[in-house]
């Protein structure tokens, strides 16, 4: 005999199935106006101002001289990794702007706990985020080509496939995507995107919202040129909150639709400026919601970066720079140690003062309002030579596995 809980779940499952059928029926009747809200695909963007033209206000950017060639947006492919609070809104904005192709990556399902964020709706609970997003986005703009992948990019097999799609998933099959956007919420996935993009020489933008929901940032990463995600410890926007009063008991993360919406907005703004070549493209733009402060900066790649491909890309970039005819002076770049950073959040992971000093590394000179999540001491291998490491062994891996299993 099924419990009430089980029956509730079953009802939900069936409702989702029904929804999927309905959506399939709709998308199957492309161009059929019988539902009254499905427009046919538009072959060429028109600047004509009529109420039936979804692109008229965007094409007006051309007439006003802001953007030189707006239609070019239809030739671009963007991959959005993470279709959560930031990624879904990002994908919606790009869809409404008429991007050529979107690749969506996420392994998660829509949950009712996501409803404090934008985009997804309660009736989509239980569907995979990429599937639900594709349905909604295709409805909004059938001109966009969608490709979705419902998996975790950080595991071996998926990562290989992810790299393949980044390098071959462009609008013209076989060509790379134009831009990768990281809208993930964890360090592992950011590092995986970073590794892939360094290896492929793929330009990407990173975005993030802090776990306390009151700050965020976007960052443009051009492998070999600007700092990659592994070039420095994670950068954070200091929200100027006293860490002692920040209560972390009993919760992992907070989230606000406002902060996520703002970050998605500044991210897509940067994407449009980058792709359509207008305005100034930000290398790093922070958002401090507590003080309404937007620090910005630019950071060069670190020659000592731990990522081998980052260093390779830097080498290529240096060669290219040498060959390039000399023009303007390259501004900025300082790697000075900052003594006193009043915005800095010290994450005390050690017990005593000495331990803390020993475990702290140099803080890169960053503008007011931006700091690093933590520092790393310069010589990492300093616990003394008598440091206890694993012994050499004659045993094979299989033998060790068997030994562990028998314990």
């Amino acid at each position: 005999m099924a419990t009430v809980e089980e029956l509730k779940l079953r009802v939900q499952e069936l409702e989702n199935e029904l929804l999927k059928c309905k959506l399939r029926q709709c998308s199957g009747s492309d161009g059929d106006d019988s539902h009254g809200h499905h427009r046919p695909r538009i072959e060429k963007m028109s600047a004509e101002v009529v109420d039936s033209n979804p692109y008229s206000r965007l094409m007006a950017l051309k007439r006003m001289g802001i953007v030189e060639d707006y239609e070019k947006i239809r030739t671009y492919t963007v991959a959005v990794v993470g279709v959560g609070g930031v990624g879904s809104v990002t994908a919606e904005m790009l869809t409404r702007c008429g991007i050529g192709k979107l690749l969506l990556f996420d392994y998660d399902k829509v949950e009712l706990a996501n409803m404090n964020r934008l985009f997804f709706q309660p009736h989509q609970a239980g569907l995979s985020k990429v599937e639900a997003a594709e349905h909604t986005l295709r409805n909004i703009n059938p001109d966009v080509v969608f490709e979705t992948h419902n998996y975790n990019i950080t595991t071996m097999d998926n990562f290989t496939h992810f790299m393949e799609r980044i390098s071959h998933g462009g609008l013209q099959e076989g060509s790379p995507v134009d831009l990768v956007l990281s809208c993930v919420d964890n360090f592992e996935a950011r590092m995986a995107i970073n590794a892939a993009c360094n290896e492929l020489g793929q330009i990407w933008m990173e975005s993030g919202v802090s776990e306390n929901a009151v700050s965020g940032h976007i960052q443009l990463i051009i492998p070999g040129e600007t700092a990659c995600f592994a070039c420095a410890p994670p950068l954070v926007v200091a929200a100027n909150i006293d860490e002692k009063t920040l209560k972390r008991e009993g919760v992992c993360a907070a989230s606000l639709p406002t902060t996520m919406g703002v970050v998605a907005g500044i991210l897509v703004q940067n994407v449009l400026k980058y792709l359509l070549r207008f305005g100034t493209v930000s290398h790093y733009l922070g958002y401090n919601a507590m003080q309404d402060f937007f620090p910005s900066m630019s950071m060069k790649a670190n020659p000592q970066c731990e990522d081998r491909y980052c260093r390779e890309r830097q080498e290529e970039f240096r060669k290219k720079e040498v060959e390039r005819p000399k023009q303007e002076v390259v501004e900025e770049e300082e790697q000075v140690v900052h003594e006193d950073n009043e915005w800095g959040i010290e994450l005390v992971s050690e017990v005593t003062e000495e331990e803390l000093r020993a475990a702290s590394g140099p803080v890169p000179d960053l503008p007011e309002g931006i700091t690093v999540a933590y520092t790393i001491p310069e010589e990492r291998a300093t616990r003394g030579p008598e440091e206890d490491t694993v012994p050499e062994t004659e045993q094979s891996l299989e033998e060790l596995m068997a030994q562990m299993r028998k314990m």
Partner: protein
Amino acid sequence: MADEATRKAVSEIPLLKTNSGPRDKELWVQRLKEEYLALIKYVENNKKADNDWFRLESNKEGTRWFGKCWYIHDLLKYEFDLEFDIPVTYPATAPEVAIPELDGKTAKMYRGGKICLTDHFKPLWARNVPKFGLAHLMALGLGPWLAVEVPDLIAKGLVQHKEQQSS
């Protein structure tokens, strides 16, 4: 960071030498051997200290790990299945340990039952790449998490002692 007992346990886990992840072919096998050596030593230490609390094993590629961990509370043993994948960027990033059966029961978890580690863990891990391995992850990540969360889950009645488990 951690309490004295944890610090002592961690200091007795041998450190790893090979900076290699699952995308490197031969070096990864070397790293895996070191992982197993450190894990075996840690479990032996735990047994000696009468504080045996987990078992782990992996697929043959060493990319997917699973096992059991348990916690003794009021003389009763509470046991949980645990699992995690080795991320492609390991050891630069630690794996996310999951206890799927506790998903939704505590706020100190991300989706899929991935445990939410303290603010101290990430800097500590980053400062010790590549010397820290899975044994350190158990000692500094999962161990302290269980010690805080399990008594709380029991008190709230969200976790019950299962009869078939020996106490």
